């Protein structure tokens, strides 16, 4: 059976240094660089993901274009339109060791929805390997995610925990959304 192909655009949002770039690197290249990588402006990566959907007869291959943004708030305002334009899904990333990064996701998500309307959003709390320094609990995340009707994942880009699963789930949500949109 021939594979169906789909091009998708997903954006990562979240405060600076929560680990967005690290998650992408881990997912796309399967490597984690201890060294601090500062994203310059926007970086676009690509990953081909295979998704099987119960109600779609053919397997789907998604060319998932992953947009990673520099996490400064000022920058968000500046590039918001171009960056979020046409996004099919959002990965909203917070840092387990900084409570503020979770609270600030509100603003990010609002920013996205202003541009693209309702699209699938996954809440990701990264750096679970640093749980001894955690500033909030899983139930806080659950409560937060519930407010957006979203699912959430606890990841460690450093240890490679739940990274693959997170992106796979996002891909599935995006495909479902994209196919049912038309």
């Amino acid at each position: 059976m021939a594979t169906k192909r789909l091009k998708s655009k997903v954006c990562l949002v979240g405060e600076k240094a929560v680990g967005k770039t690290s998650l992408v690197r881990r997912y796309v290249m399967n490597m984690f660089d201890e060294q601090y990588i500062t994203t310059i402006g926007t970086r676009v990566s690509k990953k081909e993901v295979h998704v099987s959907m119960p109600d779609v007869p053919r397997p789907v291959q998604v060319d998932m274009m992953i947009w990673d943004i520099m996490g400064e708030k000022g920058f968000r305002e500046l590039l918001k339109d171009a960056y979020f334009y046409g996004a099919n899904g959002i990965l909203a990333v917070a840092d387990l060791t900084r409570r503020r990064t979770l609270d600030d996701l509100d603003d990010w998500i609002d920013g996205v929805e202003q541009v693209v309307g309702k699209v699938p959003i996954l809440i990701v709390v990264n750096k679970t390997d640093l749980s001894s320094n955690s500033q909030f609990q899983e139930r806080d995340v659950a409560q937060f995610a519930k407010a957006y009707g979203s699912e959430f994942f606890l990841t460690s880009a450093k240890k490679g925990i739940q990274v693959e699963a997170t992106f796979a789930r996002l891909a599935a949500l995006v495909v479902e959304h994209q196919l049912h949109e038309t």
Partner: protein
Amino acid sequence: MEGSWAGSRGKWGGMAVLVQRPSRAHRFDAIGLFALLAVSLLLAFLTPPVRGDLPTEIENRDASRTVTWTMGTAAGLAVQGVDLAGGNASLPWTAHNLSWDRPGEFAANGSLDPTLTMGAAGIALRADTANHIVDGDFVSGTPWTFEPSAHGNVSAAWDTGTATAVFRHDSPKTESSWDHLDVNAGVWAGVNGVAWTNTTKPHEGTGMLGLNFSLGPGPGAWAGVQHLAPVNWSSDRMVVWVLPSNSSLPLTFNVTAYVGATLYGTAPRALVAGWQEVSVDLTELGPVRDALISLTLRVNGQGIPSGTVYVDDLRLGNAKQFEETARVRQSVVKANATSPALGSGVVRVNWSTPTATGIVRVIGIVNVTSTSGSILRTFSAAPGSGWRPFFADVSATTALPGLYEVSVGIDVIADNTSVSSVEARIDDVSLVFPNRHNGTYLSNAVALGTASEFLGVTWAFDASGPTTLWAALRTGNDSSPGSPTWSAWQFWTAAGTYAATLPSASFLQARVDLTTTNASASPNLAAMAVATRHRSMQSGSVASGVFTIPAAELATFRNWRILEARSRTPAGTSISFAIGDGTYWKPVGSDGNITDTNSTMIRWSATLATTNGLVTPTLERVDLVYEYLGLPARVELRWPGWPSPIVVPSGGVVRFTAVALDAGSHVISKEPNRFDWNTNDSHGQVGIDGSYRAGEAGDHIVNVTFVGTTLSATVHVRVLAAGTWIDAMIGYAPYWLAVLTLGAVGYTGYRFGIRRTSSIDDVFLISKDGRLMMHNTRRMRADRDADILSGMLTAILSFLKDADPEENGELRRFEVGGKTTLLERGPHAYLVAVYSGKVPRRAGKNLRRFMTSLETNFGDAFARWSGDPEDLQDLKAFTGRFVSPFRFRPPRRMNGRAS
């Protein structure tokens, strides 16, 4: 604020003001210029020479030296309006005293309740001083009523001459001599003693009756002189002069006699030394006294072995006996009610009694009467010279309004037989209702000029008896007392000098509460003094002497770099610096940069100023750093686009420059011929002028050495096979971004590569969200990802547009890596065409037509595109026509949507 840099503007201390701008010198005439120069020279001359031990100079690692001045001593420093203490320069304290010692100063700085009054002595509670007595000073005699005593013994009259009221009594004697006692033999006989007649110094006439006696130790002993014949003493009073010898005392005197068989005696009366007139009430001898037998004048005492007493001038008469009062009075109408509290109603009268003889005593009487009651006060109007005052408080009976009668009387009491004469006077009668009420003085917010510390306060006031005075102060930092910057009140209840514990502030407010429980009495506020201090508001300055670069260092000296100060400038304070060489001053900016100074002589000045009297800037140390040319320390390479990595296509040329620097990064040489150039790019080469021509694709190095030294520098170059520009874009996104930015603003100078015949290499159709819809390429390459390229390009283009919408919003063409990229935007997507070699003249127009054609045929499909490439299948063929070497001709409109 450690080591911070204050603003450079401000005054330049006392000296530099002269050197600085005269601001109205728009026309800078010759005389002004001359004067300025003269002053400058004079100042330079007057500046004290630098002492050998100041300043110190140390060598730094970067071809510079630091010259340091510290503020430990004034040696080598010109100090003005600044204290040097504890190794710091700071602004000195200035004392400021607020002193109000006249009531007018209180009034000028605040307000008094209407119940207060200002007098010469100070501020007190205001009294109603209206006198309700008319003609109290007896100038006119009316409306007084002058009322003699009931039986006319005492008169009351108005004395026009003295303008007083005068009271008199005069009466002759009622006594007459009964026995002069000049001759006594056969008339008087001694009892329990020996009587005789003494003619030496009698009190009256030619002699007197003496009695020598001796009294035993027991009680009841007496001696006397007895009249031998019975006597008729029907008069009621006997008066006799008596003189006891000093050694006889104590003794008492009385008279005894028999009436029939009954012995009567008058009450004994103590004798004193010297002559005394003794008056005896004869009625004590019984009602019938016409035949008194054995009448005896007795002295009584005990234990007197040898006594003598003389009596003389015995008289008899009937006593004048009366007590009568004469008055002056008038009615007073009182309109308003007053308090019944003490002091609310007071009568005053001045009195004098020049004469009062032959009477018992004189008494003054003040009486205030109304229907609601009466009050009567008496005073002893004892004779004596001069006027004396008498006050009577009548508050209780005079509280209500109404009609009152005020009278002042003189009561004369007589009980004697001698001549009587009384003269008493009154004057200046007043009835006042002082009606004093508590009051408060409140000052304004008194500005002290600047924030100040409070050292002490002195209060001068009287508050005694029923009065109290509370003085209070508070401080604040704005002119609205009571606002949140104000402290609570601090109170003082006794006069004196106190250490103040008020919070430091720039405003002060005083409050004084004067109270009394007696409407006649008032406290009195005389003076207030508040001692404060603040940091001098005059700016002060410290200036160094001229420092000269040591002769040995002159040859390599380059310039001064920086003035650095170790200082503290709390909020509100500043330190501004200037430097000069002795002939001028110029301000130093807040960054301390003095690199434009290369004089070998230098001095500095610091101006300390504050706008807050509580704080001072402090200056601990000043460092001036100068640079010199040291030995070569390293070599550096530069190229166009430095410091971006070098990416060059094979055959491209990069022009390198080498610099030899000292430890302070001062350029020692840039001349290419003083450097040796090398590369490991075996197909490339570097010329002696530093231009490198890239050889084979791959990573290489270019190396340079400063001739005659081992100092060298190396740089990596990446040489790309010609035509791999897309890889370059993806791999070096930041670099690409930089180049694009430059290109967009018109910089096209940096290209390399060889021109070839024109051809379209690639055509991309990209949706507005960055997803690639279609890619047509003439040369298939496996190692690049057009999807990623599309996304990046979209992101970068929108970044450019955001950075400068005017310039970049319509960016249609840019060049990179020897390729030319043309852009064409449609409503849903945009088209990117990449050309190598010369771009055909009509290419732009061609592309636009193609875009229009695409939107016409696929606009709907674009708008609805969900990301499925199958939806756009018809595009491929359509795009192929454009990539063909021929001019693009739009086909006839294709039918329907692509899916």
